[in-house]
Protein backbone atom coordinates (compact mmCIF):
# COMPACT_ATOMS: atom_id res chain seq x y z
CA UNK A 1 0.00 0.00 0.00
CA UNK A 2 1.57 3.25 -1.00
CA UNK A 3 -1.12 5.83 -0.79
CA UNK A 4 -0.34 9.31 0.37
CA UNK A 5 -2.47 11.52 2.55
CA UNK A 6 -2.13 15.13 3.63
CA UNK A 7 -4.18 16.07 6.68
CA UNK A 8 -4.68 19.72 7.63
CA UNK A 9 -1.18 20.45 6.44
CA UNK A 10 0.05 23.90 7.44
CA UNK A 11 3.37 25.61 6.77
CA UNK A 12 4.50 28.89 8.24
CA UNK A 13 7.77 30.76 7.95
CA UNK A 14 7.99 32.81 11.13
CA UNK A 15 4.62 34.54 11.15
CA UNK A 16 3.83 34.19 7.46
CA UNK A 17 1.56 31.28 6.78
CA UNK A 18 2.16 29.96 3.29
CA UNK A 19 0.03 26.81 3.35
CA UNK A 20 -3.43 26.82 4.86
CA UNK A 21 -4.72 23.45 5.95
CA UNK A 22 -4.13 21.29 2.89
CA UNK A 23 -6.15 18.07 2.73
CA UNK A 24 -5.58 15.52 0.01
CA UNK A 25 -5.74 11.77 -0.51
CA UNK A 26 -3.70 10.17 -3.24
CA UNK A 27 -4.44 6.59 -4.22
CA UNK A 28 -1.77 3.97 -4.85
CA UNK A 29 -0.37 4.35 -8.37
CA UNK A 30 -2.10 7.63 -9.03
CA UNK A 31 -0.45 10.42 -11.05
CA UNK A 32 -1.31 13.68 -9.28
CA UNK A 33 -0.18 17.05 -10.59
CA UNK A 34 0.03 20.13 -8.40
CA UNK A 35 -0.39 23.21 -10.53
CA UNK A 36 -0.65 26.90 -9.77
CA UNK A 37 1.10 30.24 -10.25
CA UNK A 38 4.46 30.80 -8.56
CA UNK A 39 4.16 31.34 -4.84
CA UNK A 40 1.01 29.24 -4.56
CA UNK A 41 2.67 26.73 -2.23
CA UNK A 42 2.88 23.75 -4.59
CA UNK A 43 6.64 23.33 -4.32
CA UNK A 44 6.54 23.85 -0.57
CA UNK A 45 3.96 21.08 -0.29
CA UNK A 46 6.15 18.77 -2.36
CA UNK A 47 9.24 19.58 -0.30
CA UNK A 48 7.29 18.87 2.87
CA UNK A 49 6.26 15.48 1.49
CA UNK A 50 9.92 14.86 0.65
CA UNK A 51 11.02 15.85 4.14
CA UNK A 52 13.13 18.79 3.00
CA UNK A 53 10.85 21.24 4.80
CA UNK A 54 9.46 20.78 8.27
CA UNK A 55 5.74 20.47 8.83
CA UNK A 56 4.36 23.33 10.93
CA UNK A 57 1.17 21.45 11.77
CA UNK A 58 -0.95 18.68 10.31
CA UNK A 59 0.12 15.26 9.15
CA UNK A 60 1.69 13.60 6.14
CA UNK A 61 0.97 9.91 5.73
CA UNK A 62 2.81 7.68 3.27
CA UNK A 63 1.61 4.09 3.00
CA UNK A 64 -0.44 4.46 6.14
CA UNK A 65 2.30 5.73 8.46
CA UNK A 66 2.76 9.29 9.59
CA UNK A 67 6.12 10.48 8.31
CA UNK A 68 6.23 13.99 9.80
CA UNK A 69 9.31 13.24 11.88
CA UNK A 70 11.04 10.82 9.55
CA UNK A 71 14.19 11.70 7.62
CA UNK A 72 13.73 11.90 3.83
CA UNK A 73 15.54 8.59 3.37
CA UNK A 74 13.10 6.83 5.71
CA UNK A 75 10.04 7.98 3.81
CA UNK A 76 10.32 5.65 0.84
CA UNK A 77 10.23 8.48 -1.69
CA UNK A 78 12.46 9.71 -4.50
CA UNK A 79 12.62 13.15 -6.00
CA UNK A 80 13.52 14.64 -9.37
CA UNK A 81 14.69 18.23 -9.14
CA UNK A 82 14.14 21.14 -11.49
CA UNK A 83 17.89 21.47 -12.18
CA UNK A 84 18.17 17.63 -12.16
CA UNK A 85 20.77 17.71 -9.34
CA UNK A 86 22.92 15.16 -11.13
CA UNK A 87 26.56 15.31 -10.14
CA UNK A 88 28.83 16.68 -12.90
CA UNK A 89 31.89 14.77 -11.71
CA UNK A 90 30.25 11.34 -11.79
CA UNK A 91 29.41 9.12 -14.72
CA UNK A 92 25.80 8.34 -15.54
CA UNK A 93 26.24 4.92 -13.92
CA UNK A 94 27.53 6.45 -10.69
CA UNK A 95 24.82 9.08 -10.72
CA UNK A 96 22.06 6.52 -11.08
CA UNK A 97 23.82 4.29 -8.56
CA UNK A 98 23.94 7.13 -6.06
CA UNK A 99 20.28 6.46 -5.31
CA UNK A 100 21.30 2.99 -4.11
CA UNK A 101 24.16 4.07 -1.89
CA UNK A 102 22.23 3.55 1.31
CA UNK A 103 20.48 0.39 0.13
CA UNK A 104 21.38 -3.01 1.52
CA UNK A 105 21.58 -4.74 -1.85
CA UNK A 106 24.81 -6.51 -2.75
CA UNK A 107 27.08 -4.95 -5.34
CA UNK A 108 26.06 -7.25 -8.24
CA UNK A 109 22.41 -6.69 -7.37
CA UNK A 110 22.93 -2.94 -7.45
CA UNK A 111 24.71 -3.14 -10.80
CA UNK A 112 21.88 -5.27 -12.19
CA UNK A 113 19.34 -2.76 -10.92
CA UNK A 114 21.22 0.14 -12.55
CA UNK A 115 21.36 -1.77 -15.84
CA UNK A 116 17.67 -2.53 -15.64
CA UNK A 117 16.73 1.11 -15.05
CA UNK A 118 19.10 2.28 -17.78
CA UNK A 119 17.42 -0.22 -20.10
CA UNK A 120 13.95 1.08 -19.28
CA UNK A 121 15.10 4.65 -19.92
CA UNK A 122 16.98 3.68 -23.08
CA UNK A 123 20.35 4.90 -21.88
CA UNK A 124 22.39 1.73 -21.64
CA UNK A 125 24.89 3.18 -24.13
CA UNK A 126 25.32 6.34 -22.08
CA UNK A 127 26.23 4.79 -18.72
CA UNK A 128 29.93 5.58 -19.03
CA UNK A 129 29.40 9.22 -19.94
CA UNK A 130 29.60 12.28 -17.74
CA UNK A 131 26.65 14.70 -17.56
CA UNK A 132 28.50 17.35 -19.58
CA UNK A 133 28.42 14.98 -22.55
CA UNK A 134 24.63 14.60 -22.39
CA UNK A 135 21.80 16.63 -23.87
CA UNK A 136 19.18 18.29 -21.70
CA UNK A 137 16.69 15.48 -22.23
CA UNK A 138 19.28 12.82 -21.44
CA UNK A 139 20.26 14.58 -18.20
CA UNK A 140 16.62 14.68 -17.30
CA UNK A 141 16.45 10.94 -17.85
CA UNK A 142 19.47 10.37 -15.62
CA UNK A 143 17.70 12.28 -12.86
CA UNK A 144 14.60 10.13 -13.34
CA UNK A 145 16.81 7.04 -13.38
CA UNK A 146 18.36 7.93 -10.06
CA UNK A 147 14.87 8.20 -8.60
CA UNK A 148 13.62 5.00 -10.26
CA UNK A 149 16.51 2.85 -9.16
CA UNK A 150 15.27 2.98 -5.59
CA UNK A 151 11.78 1.82 -6.54
CA UNK A 152 10.13 4.21 -4.08
CA UNK A 153 6.51 4.22 -2.99
CA UNK A 154 6.12 7.78 -4.20
CA UNK A 155 7.95 9.72 -6.90
CA UNK A 156 8.17 13.46 -6.42
CA UNK A 157 8.83 15.68 -9.45
CA UNK A 158 9.60 19.35 -8.83
CA UNK A 159 9.04 21.20 -12.12
CA UNK A 160 11.35 18.78 -13.92
CA UNK A 161 10.56 19.95 -17.43
CA UNK A 162 10.90 23.69 -17.06
CA UNK A 163 14.59 23.73 -18.08
CA UNK A 164 13.88 21.99 -21.38
CA UNK A 165 12.97 23.59 -24.69
CA UNK A 166 9.38 23.38 -25.88
CA UNK A 167 9.79 20.42 -28.20
CA UNK A 168 11.76 18.34 -25.71
CA UNK A 169 9.27 19.18 -23.00
CA UNK A 170 6.44 17.70 -25.05
CA UNK A 171 8.52 14.59 -25.66
CA UNK A 172 9.56 14.13 -22.01
CA UNK A 173 5.95 14.70 -20.94
CA UNK A 174 4.98 11.72 -23.00
CA UNK A 175 7.91 9.65 -21.77
CA UNK A 176 7.12 10.29 -18.13
CA UNK A 177 3.52 9.35 -18.72
CA UNK A 178 4.54 6.11 -20.45
CA UNK A 179 6.98 5.42 -17.65
CA UNK A 180 4.23 5.83 -15.11
CA UNK A 181 2.08 3.37 -16.96
CA UNK A 182 4.97 0.94 -17.02
CA UNK A 183 6.25 1.15 -13.42
CA UNK A 184 2.97 2.14 -11.82
CA UNK A 185 4.35 3.99 -8.78
CA UNK A 186 2.49 6.89 -7.24
CA UNK A 187 3.67 10.20 -8.71
CA UNK A 188 3.32 13.70 -7.35
CA UNK A 189 4.31 16.18 -10.03
CA UNK A 190 4.61 19.92 -9.51
CA UNK A 191 4.39 22.35 -12.40
CA UNK A 192 3.23 25.85 -13.20
CA UNK A 193 2.28 24.81 -16.71
CA UNK A 194 -1.40 23.95 -17.02
CA UNK A 195 -0.78 22.07 -20.29
CA UNK A 196 1.59 19.69 -18.46
CA UNK A 197 -1.02 19.27 -15.75
CA UNK A 198 -3.83 18.55 -18.21
CA UNK A 199 -1.86 16.12 -20.35
CA UNK A 200 -0.18 14.06 -17.65
CA UNK A 201 -2.39 13.95 -14.60
CA UNK A 202 -4.88 11.40 -13.39
CA UNK A 203 -5.96 14.13 -11.05
CA UNK A 204 -5.02 17.79 -10.90
CA UNK A 205 -4.66 19.81 -7.72
CA UNK A 206 -4.97 23.50 -8.48
CA UNK A 207 -3.48 25.77 -5.85
CA UNK A 208 -3.41 29.48 -5.21
CA UNK A 209 -2.05 31.44 -2.25
CA UNK A 210 -1.59 28.32 -0.14
CA UNK A 211 -5.13 27.05 -0.66
CA UNK A 212 -6.36 24.19 -2.82
CA UNK A 213 -8.80 25.64 -5.33
CA UNK A 214 -9.99 22.41 -6.86
CA UNK A 215 -9.05 18.75 -7.08
CA UNK A 216 -10.30 16.77 -10.02
CA UNK A 217 -9.56 14.89 -13.20
CA UNK A 218 -8.39 17.01 -16.15
CA UNK A 219 -11.88 16.64 -17.59
CA UNK A 220 -13.54 17.87 -14.40
CA UNK A 221 -11.34 20.90 -13.84
CA UNK A 222 -11.71 21.91 -17.46
CA UNK A 223 -15.41 21.38 -17.88
CA UNK A 224 -16.57 22.00 -14.34
CA UNK A 225 -14.26 24.61 -12.84
CA UNK A 226 -15.04 25.28 -9.19
CA UNK A 227 -14.35 28.98 -9.40
CA UNK A 228 -13.19 31.77 -11.69
CA UNK A 229 -9.51 31.21 -10.79
CA UNK A 230 -9.58 27.59 -11.96
CA UNK A 231 -11.69 28.58 -14.96
CA UNK A 232 -9.11 31.10 -16.10
CA UNK A 233 -5.99 29.15 -15.07
CA UNK A 234 -6.84 25.96 -16.90
CA UNK A 235 -7.18 26.24 -20.66
CA UNK A 236 -5.37 28.50 -23.09
CA UNK A 237 -6.42 31.03 -24.10
CA UNK A 238 -8.20 31.81 -20.84
CA UNK A 239 -11.94 31.61 -20.37
CA UNK A 240 -13.81 34.87 -21.01
CA UNK A 241 -15.58 36.23 -17.96
CA UNK A 242 -18.45 38.64 -18.52
CA UNK A 243 -20.05 40.52 -15.66
CA UNK A 244 -23.79 40.87 -15.41
CA UNK A 245 -26.94 40.48 -13.32
CA UNK A 246 -29.70 37.96 -13.51
CA UNK A 247 -32.96 39.41 -14.88
CA UNK A 248 -35.99 37.48 -16.11
CA UNK A 249 -34.16 34.17 -16.34
CA UNK A 250 -31.33 35.63 -18.35
CA UNK A 251 -27.99 37.27 -17.61
CA UNK A 252 -28.12 40.92 -18.50
CA UNK A 253 -24.51 41.82 -19.26
CA UNK A 254 -22.88 44.99 -18.01
CA UNK A 255 -22.42 47.16 -21.08
CA UNK A 256 -25.27 45.63 -23.04
CA UNK A 257 -26.46 42.29 -24.29
CA UNK A 258 -28.29 39.45 -22.65
CA UNK A 259 -27.70 35.72 -22.51
CA UNK A 260 -30.46 33.26 -21.64
CA UNK A 261 -29.78 31.28 -18.52
CA UNK A 262 -30.72 27.68 -19.14
CA UNK A 263 -28.25 25.53 -17.25
CA UNK A 264 -28.85 26.74 -13.68
CA UNK A 265 -31.46 28.55 -11.67
CA UNK A 266 -30.16 31.75 -10.14
CA UNK A 267 -32.04 34.19 -7.94
CA UNK A 268 -33.24 37.34 -9.67
CA UNK A 269 -30.97 40.37 -9.30
CA UNK A 270 -27.88 38.38 -8.27
CA UNK A 271 -24.58 39.69 -9.62
CA UNK A 272 -22.79 36.97 -11.58
CA UNK A 273 -19.90 36.37 -13.93
CA UNK A 274 -20.60 34.44 -17.07
CA UNK A 275 -17.76 32.25 -18.26
CA UNK A 276 -17.39 31.29 -21.92
CA UNK A 277 -14.37 29.41 -23.28
CA UNK A 278 -12.96 30.92 -26.49
CA UNK A 279 -13.50 27.67 -28.35
CA UNK A 280 -17.20 27.74 -27.43
CA UNK A 281 -17.57 31.24 -28.78
CA UNK A 282 -17.69 31.14 -32.55
CA UNK A 283 -19.00 33.10 -35.49
CA UNK A 284 -22.79 33.20 -35.53
CA UNK A 285 -24.87 31.68 -38.26
CA UNK A 286 -28.36 33.07 -38.93
CA UNK A 287 -30.36 34.20 -35.95
CA UNK A 288 -28.42 32.89 -32.97
CA UNK A 289 -26.28 35.96 -32.39
CA UNK A 290 -25.34 36.62 -28.76
CA UNK A 291 -22.72 39.31 -29.14
CA UNK A 292 -21.62 41.76 -31.79
CA UNK A 293 -18.31 43.55 -31.92
CA UNK A 294 -15.26 44.55 -33.88
CA UNK A 295 -12.20 42.32 -34.33
CA UNK A 296 -9.14 44.13 -32.91
CA UNK A 297 -6.58 41.38 -33.54
CA UNK A 298 -6.79 38.09 -35.41
CA UNK A 299 -4.21 35.42 -34.52
CA UNK A 300 -4.06 32.63 -37.08
CA UNK A 301 -3.09 29.28 -35.52
CA UNK A 302 -3.55 27.22 -38.66
CA UNK A 303 -6.45 24.98 -37.71
CA UNK A 304 -8.33 27.93 -36.25
CA UNK A 305 -8.00 31.66 -35.72
CA UNK A 306 -8.18 33.43 -32.38
CA UNK A 307 -10.28 36.56 -32.64
CA UNK A 308 -9.88 39.34 -30.08
CA UNK A 309 -13.22 41.06 -30.28
CA UNK A 310 -13.98 44.42 -28.70
CA UNK A 311 -17.39 44.23 -27.17
CA UNK A 312 -19.00 46.99 -25.15
CA UNK A 313 -15.62 48.44 -24.18
CA UNK A 314 -13.96 45.14 -23.24
CA UNK A 315 -12.12 42.47 -25.10
CA UNK A 316 -13.20 38.85 -25.38
CA UNK A 317 -11.57 36.01 -27.20
CA UNK A 318 -13.46 33.96 -29.76
CA UNK A 319 -12.52 31.28 -32.23
CA UNK A 320 -12.85 31.69 -35.95
CA UNK A 321 -12.25 29.24 -38.77
CA UNK A 322 -8.76 28.47 -39.99
CA UNK A 323 -9.73 29.31 -43.58
CA UNK A 324 -10.96 32.77 -44.57
CA UNK A 325 -11.22 34.13 -41.03
CA UNK A 326 -12.41 37.68 -40.29
CA UNK A 327 -9.65 40.28 -40.32
CA UNK A 328 -8.84 43.03 -37.85
CA UNK A 329 -11.44 45.78 -38.16
CA UNK A 330 -14.19 43.45 -39.35
CA UNK A 331 -17.55 43.55 -37.62
CA UNK A 332 -18.47 40.09 -36.40
CA UNK A 333 -21.44 38.42 -34.76
CA UNK A 334 -20.69 35.73 -32.22
CA UNK A 335 -22.73 32.97 -30.70
CA UNK A 336 -22.29 30.25 -28.11
CA UNK A 337 -24.31 27.39 -26.77
CA UNK A 338 -25.71 28.59 -23.41
CA UNK A 339 -25.31 25.04 -22.11
CA UNK A 340 -21.52 25.39 -22.47
CA UNK A 341 -21.39 28.51 -20.32
CA UNK A 342 -20.43 28.70 -16.67
CA UNK A 343 -22.06 30.92 -14.10
CA UNK A 344 -19.99 32.20 -11.19
CA UNK A 345 -20.89 34.34 -8.22
CA UNK A 346 -19.54 37.83 -8.99
CA UNK A 347 -18.28 38.35 -5.45
CA UNK A 348 -16.79 35.03 -4.34
CA UNK A 349 -15.97 33.69 -7.80
CA UNK A 350 -17.43 30.31 -6.84
CA UNK A 351 -19.39 28.43 -9.47
CA UNK A 352 -23.18 28.45 -9.22
CA UNK A 353 -24.44 25.00 -10.01
Amino acid at each position, binding site marked *: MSDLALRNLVKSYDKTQVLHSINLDVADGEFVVFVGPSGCGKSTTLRMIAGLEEVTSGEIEIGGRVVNNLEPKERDIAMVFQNY*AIYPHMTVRKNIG*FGLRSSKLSKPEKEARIDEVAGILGMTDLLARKPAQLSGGQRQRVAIGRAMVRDPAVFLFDEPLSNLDAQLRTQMRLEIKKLHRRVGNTIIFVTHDQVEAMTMADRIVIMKDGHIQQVGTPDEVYHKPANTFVAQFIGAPSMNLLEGTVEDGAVSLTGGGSVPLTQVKVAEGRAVKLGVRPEDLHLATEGDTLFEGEVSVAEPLGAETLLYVTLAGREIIATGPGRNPPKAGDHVRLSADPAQMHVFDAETGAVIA
Partner: protein
Amino acid sequence: MSFYRALSIRQKRTLWAWGFLAVPIIFYVVIRFYPTGNAMVLSFQSWNLLGDREWAGLANYRVLFSDPVFWQVFWNTFKYLLIGTPISLVISFFIAYHLDKVRFAHGFLRALYFLPFMTSAVAMAWVWRWFYQGVPIGLFNNMLASVGIGQVEFLNSTTNALPSILAPAVWAGLGFQVIIFMAGLRAIPRSYYEAAEIDGVSKWTVLWEITIPLLRPTIVFIVVFSSIGFLRIFDHVFNMTTNNPGGPLNSTKPLVLMIYETAFRSFDMGYAAAQTVVLFLILLVVSLIQLRILRDS
Protein backbone atom coordinates in the same frame (compact mmCIF):
# COMPACT_ATOMS: atom_id res chain seq x y z
CA MET B 1 41.36 59.52 -41.35
CA SER B 2 40.56 58.06 -44.73
CA PHE B 3 42.92 55.22 -43.86
CA TYR B 4 40.86 54.44 -40.74
CA ARG B 5 37.60 54.57 -42.68
CA ALA B 6 38.82 52.10 -45.20
CA LEU B 7 39.27 49.45 -42.49
CA SER B 8 36.69 46.74 -41.95
CA ILE B 9 34.82 46.58 -38.62
CA ARG B 10 37.00 43.70 -37.58
CA GLN B 11 40.20 45.56 -38.37
CA LYS B 12 38.94 48.63 -36.50
CA ARG B 13 38.16 46.53 -33.44
CA THR B 14 41.60 44.94 -33.59
CA LEU B 15 43.19 48.35 -33.84
CA TRP B 16 41.32 49.62 -30.78
CA ALA B 17 41.99 46.47 -28.81
CA TRP B 18 45.72 46.71 -29.41
CA GLY B 19 45.61 50.43 -28.71
CA PHE B 20 44.27 49.80 -25.23
CA LEU B 21 46.42 46.75 -24.66
CA ALA B 22 49.54 48.68 -25.59
CA VAL B 23 49.57 50.58 -22.28
CA PRO B 24 49.79 47.56 -19.94
CA ILE B 25 52.02 45.73 -22.39
CA ILE B 26 54.56 48.54 -22.44
CA PHE B 27 54.32 48.82 -18.67
CA TYR B 28 54.91 45.12 -18.22
CA VAL B 29 57.77 45.01 -20.67
CA VAL B 30 59.57 47.87 -18.94
CA ILE B 31 58.78 46.99 -15.31
CA ARG B 32 58.64 43.19 -15.43
CA PHE B 33 60.00 41.48 -18.49
CA TYR B 34 63.10 43.62 -19.03
CA PRO B 35 64.30 43.26 -15.39
CA THR B 36 63.50 39.52 -15.50
CA GLY B 37 65.59 39.08 -18.64
CA ASN B 38 68.28 41.29 -17.19
CA ALA B 39 68.41 39.18 -14.01
CA MET B 40 68.80 36.06 -16.08
CA VAL B 41 71.71 37.58 -17.96
CA LEU B 42 73.14 38.86 -14.67
CA SER B 43 73.11 35.35 -13.26
CA PHE B 44 75.91 34.53 -15.69
CA GLN B 45 77.90 37.61 -14.70
CA SER B 46 79.73 38.93 -11.71
CA TRP B 47 78.82 42.41 -10.42
CA ASN B 48 79.22 44.24 -7.12
CA LEU B 49 76.68 46.97 -7.91
CA LEU B 50 79.34 49.66 -8.55
CA GLY B 51 81.91 48.19 -10.91
CA ASP B 52 81.49 46.77 -14.41
CA ARG B 53 79.52 43.61 -15.04
CA GLU B 54 81.92 40.85 -15.97
CA TRP B 55 81.08 37.67 -17.76
CA ALA B 56 81.40 34.71 -15.44
CA GLY B 57 79.75 31.92 -17.38
CA LEU B 58 78.30 29.21 -15.16
CA ALA B 59 80.54 30.11 -12.23
CA ASN B 60 77.65 31.48 -10.12
CA TYR B 61 75.64 28.29 -10.56
CA ARG B 62 78.69 26.13 -9.91
CA VAL B 63 79.32 27.94 -6.62
CA LEU B 64 75.64 27.76 -5.71
CA PHE B 65 75.24 24.06 -6.23
CA SER B 66 78.39 23.25 -4.29
CA ASP B 67 77.38 25.52 -1.38
CA PRO B 68 76.07 23.45 1.56
CA VAL B 69 74.13 26.49 2.82
CA PHE B 70 72.21 26.59 -0.45
CA TRP B 71 71.09 22.97 -0.05
CA GLN B 72 70.11 23.64 3.55
CA VAL B 73 68.11 26.68 2.37
CA PHE B 74 66.65 24.76 -0.54
CA TRP B 75 65.39 22.07 1.84
CA ASN B 76 64.07 24.72 4.29
CA THR B 77 62.08 26.34 1.50
CA PHE B 78 60.46 23.03 0.65
CA LYS B 79 59.73 22.39 4.32
CA TYR B 80 57.75 25.65 4.43
CA LEU B 81 55.88 24.48 1.36
CA LEU B 82 55.31 20.86 2.34
CA ILE B 83 54.20 21.59 5.89
CA GLY B 84 52.48 24.93 5.32
CA THR B 85 50.31 24.17 2.28
CA PRO B 86 48.52 21.02 3.51
CA ILE B 87 48.04 22.39 7.02
CA SER B 88 46.62 25.68 5.83
CA LEU B 89 44.43 23.89 3.28
CA VAL B 90 42.91 21.55 5.84
CA ILE B 91 42.43 24.21 8.50
CA SER B 92 40.91 26.76 6.13
CA PHE B 93 38.55 24.16 4.64
CA PHE B 94 37.52 23.02 8.11
CA ILE B 95 36.77 26.61 9.16
CA ALA B 96 34.98 27.49 5.91
CA TYR B 97 32.90 24.30 5.94
CA HIS B 98 31.60 25.01 9.41
CA LEU B 99 31.40 28.78 9.11
CA ASP B 100 29.23 28.27 6.03
CA LYS B 101 26.64 26.57 8.22
CA VAL B 102 26.72 29.16 10.98
CA ARG B 103 24.00 31.78 10.72
CA PHE B 104 24.65 33.48 14.05
CA ALA B 105 27.04 36.46 13.72
CA HIS B 106 28.17 35.08 10.38
CA GLY B 107 29.52 38.35 9.00
CA PHE B 108 31.34 39.17 12.22
CA LEU B 109 33.01 35.75 12.40
CA ARG B 110 34.05 35.96 8.78
CA ALA B 111 35.57 39.39 9.37
CA LEU B 112 37.40 37.98 12.38
CA TYR B 113 39.01 35.28 10.26
CA PHE B 114 39.88 37.76 7.56
CA LEU B 115 41.51 40.24 9.93
CA PRO B 116 44.97 38.56 10.09
CA PHE B 117 45.15 38.68 6.30
CA MET B 118 44.84 42.46 6.39
CA THR B 119 47.37 42.87 9.19
CA SER B 120 50.96 43.83 8.36
CA ALA B 121 53.17 40.75 8.31
CA VAL B 122 55.92 42.69 10.10
CA ALA B 123 53.68 43.68 13.01
CA MET B 124 52.33 40.17 13.25
CA ALA B 125 55.78 38.62 13.19
CA TRP B 126 56.88 40.79 16.09
CA VAL B 127 53.75 40.00 18.13
CA TRP B 128 54.31 36.28 17.60
CA ARG B 129 57.94 36.75 18.45
CA TRP B 130 56.80 38.10 21.78
CA PHE B 131 54.46 35.10 22.20
CA TYR B 132 57.47 32.82 21.78
CA GLN B 133 59.75 34.44 24.39
CA GLY B 134 60.74 32.66 27.56
CA VAL B 135 59.21 33.19 31.02
CA PRO B 136 58.27 35.78 32.27
CA ILE B 137 57.80 37.61 28.96
CA GLY B 138 56.44 35.16 26.41
CA LEU B 139 52.77 34.28 26.37
CA PHE B 140 53.10 30.62 25.41
CA ASN B 141 55.86 29.79 27.88
CA ASN B 142 53.94 31.56 30.65
CA MET B 143 50.90 29.45 29.82
CA LEU B 144 53.00 26.29 29.80
CA ALA B 145 54.65 27.25 33.07
CA SER B 146 51.28 27.86 34.73
CA VAL B 147 50.24 24.27 34.03
CA GLY B 148 53.61 22.96 35.08
CA ILE B 149 55.22 22.20 31.74
CA GLY B 150 58.84 23.17 31.20
CA GLN B 151 60.14 25.88 28.92
CA VAL B 152 60.06 25.37 25.20
CA GLU B 153 62.72 27.08 23.10
CA PHE B 154 60.54 28.11 20.21
CA LEU B 155 62.82 30.31 18.16
CA ASN B 156 66.19 29.32 19.55
CA SER B 157 66.09 25.66 18.65
CA THR B 158 67.09 24.36 15.24
CA THR B 159 64.17 21.94 15.22
CA ASN B 160 61.42 24.17 16.66
CA ALA B 161 62.24 27.44 14.93
CA LEU B 162 60.92 26.63 11.46
CA PRO B 163 57.48 25.38 12.59
CA SER B 164 57.27 28.29 15.02
CA ILE B 165 57.77 30.75 12.18
CA LEU B 166 55.44 28.83 9.92
CA ALA B 167 52.55 29.05 12.40
CA PRO B 168 51.93 32.82 12.06
CA ALA B 169 52.48 32.53 8.29
CA VAL B 170 49.75 29.89 8.05
CA TRP B 171 47.53 31.92 10.33
CA ALA B 172 48.02 35.07 8.24
CA GLY B 173 46.95 33.39 5.00
CA LEU B 174 43.99 31.61 6.54
CA GLY B 175 41.48 34.46 6.20
CA PHE B 176 41.95 34.68 2.46
CA GLN B 177 41.67 30.93 1.98
CA VAL B 178 38.57 30.72 4.15
CA ILE B 179 36.86 33.40 2.05
CA ILE B 180 37.78 31.61 -1.19
CA PHE B 181 36.60 28.26 0.17
CA MET B 182 33.31 29.78 1.30
CA ALA B 183 32.70 31.27 -2.13
CA GLY B 184 33.37 27.82 -3.58
CA LEU B 185 30.97 26.18 -1.14
CA ARG B 186 28.27 28.71 -1.92
CA ALA B 187 28.58 27.95 -5.62
CA ILE B 188 27.47 24.33 -5.12
CA PRO B 189 23.72 24.15 -5.83
CA ARG B 190 21.61 23.33 -2.77
CA SER B 191 19.67 20.72 -4.70
CA TYR B 192 22.82 18.53 -4.86
CA TYR B 193 22.68 18.27 -1.10
CA GLU B 194 18.92 17.83 -1.03
CA ALA B 195 19.13 15.03 -3.58
CA ALA B 196 21.79 13.35 -1.43
CA GLU B 197 19.58 13.80 1.63
CA ILE B 198 16.71 12.05 -0.11
CA ASP B 199 19.05 9.29 -1.28
CA GLY B 200 19.94 8.93 2.37
CA VAL B 201 23.73 8.90 2.11
CA SER B 202 25.86 9.77 5.14
CA LYS B 203 27.31 13.24 5.82
CA TRP B 204 30.73 11.73 5.29
CA THR B 205 29.81 10.48 1.82
CA VAL B 206 28.36 13.87 0.95
CA LEU B 207 31.58 15.56 2.04
CA TRP B 208 33.94 13.21 0.18
CA GLU B 209 31.89 12.47 -2.91
CA ILE B 210 30.01 15.68 -3.53
CA THR B 211 31.46 18.67 -1.72
CA ILE B 212 35.18 18.03 -2.17
CA PRO B 213 35.06 16.91 -5.84
CA LEU B 214 32.92 19.92 -6.70
CA LEU B 215 35.37 22.18 -4.88
CA ARG B 216 38.24 20.93 -7.02
CA PRO B 217 38.77 24.21 -8.93
CA THR B 218 38.78 26.11 -5.64
CA ILE B 219 41.25 23.65 -4.12
CA VAL B 220 43.56 23.92 -7.14
CA PHE B 221 43.51 27.68 -6.86
CA ILE B 222 44.25 27.69 -3.13
CA VAL B 223 46.99 25.05 -3.37
CA VAL B 224 48.81 26.87 -6.17
CA PHE B 225 48.40 30.24 -4.52
CA SER B 226 49.48 29.20 -1.06
CA SER B 227 52.38 27.14 -2.45
CA ILE B 228 53.74 30.17 -4.23
CA GLY B 229 53.27 32.12 -1.00
CA PHE B 230 55.20 29.59 1.09
CA LEU B 231 57.99 29.24 -1.47
CA ARG B 232 58.45 32.99 -1.33
CA ILE B 233 58.24 33.29 2.46
CA PHE B 234 60.48 36.08 3.71
CA ASP B 235 59.00 38.75 5.98
CA HIS B 236 57.94 36.43 8.78
CA VAL B 237 61.36 34.79 8.88
CA PHE B 238 63.27 38.04 8.56
CA ASN B 239 61.35 39.78 11.33
CA MET B 240 61.28 36.89 13.78
CA THR B 241 65.01 36.23 13.48
CA THR B 242 66.39 39.76 12.97
CA ASN B 243 69.42 39.38 15.21
CA ASN B 244 70.50 36.30 13.27
CA PRO B 245 68.50 36.25 10.03
CA GLY B 246 67.47 32.73 9.04
CA GLY B 247 68.97 31.31 12.21
CA PRO B 248 69.65 29.51 14.38
CA LEU B 249 72.31 27.89 12.18
CA ASN B 250 70.37 28.68 8.97
CA SER B 251 67.63 26.33 10.16
CA THR B 252 64.84 28.75 9.19
CA LYS B 253 66.47 30.47 6.22
CA PRO B 254 64.34 30.37 3.05
CA LEU B 255 65.66 31.01 -0.45
CA VAL B 256 64.36 34.57 -0.62
CA LEU B 257 66.23 35.51 2.52
CA MET B 258 69.41 33.97 1.13
CA ILE B 259 68.97 36.02 -2.06
CA TYR B 260 68.43 39.16 0.01
CA GLU B 261 71.59 38.56 2.01
CA THR B 262 73.72 37.74 -1.02
CA ALA B 263 72.49 40.83 -2.83
CA PHE B 264 72.28 43.48 -0.11
CA ARG B 265 74.83 42.32 2.47
CA SER B 266 77.48 40.71 0.30
CA PHE B 267 76.63 42.82 -2.78
CA ASP B 268 77.28 39.81 -4.97
CA MET B 269 74.62 40.63 -7.54
CA GLY B 270 75.48 37.95 -10.07
CA TYR B 271 75.35 35.23 -7.43
CA ALA B 272 72.02 36.60 -6.08
CA ALA B 273 70.64 36.65 -9.62
CA ALA B 274 71.60 33.00 -10.06
CA GLN B 275 69.71 32.14 -6.85
CA THR B 276 66.73 34.14 -8.09
CA VAL B 277 66.69 32.20 -11.33
CA VAL B 278 66.73 28.94 -9.35
CA LEU B 279 63.80 30.20 -7.22
CA PHE B 280 61.92 31.17 -10.36
CA LEU B 281 62.43 27.71 -11.83
CA ILE B 282 61.30 26.05 -8.59
CA LEU B 283 58.11 28.15 -8.56
CA LEU B 284 57.46 27.38 -12.19
CA VAL B 285 57.99 23.64 -11.86
CA VAL B 286 55.98 23.31 -8.63
CA SER B 287 53.03 25.27 -10.06
CA LEU B 288 53.04 23.29 -13.29
CA ILE B 289 53.18 19.97 -11.46
CA GLN B 290 50.30 21.00 -9.19
CA LEU B 291 48.16 22.16 -12.08
CA ARG B 292 48.87 18.94 -13.96
CA ILE B 293 48.01 16.73 -10.98
CA LEU B 294 45.02 18.63 -9.66
CA ARG B 295 43.28 19.50 -12.89
CA ASP B 296 40.71 17.07 -14.26
CA SER B 297 42.09 13.63 -13.85
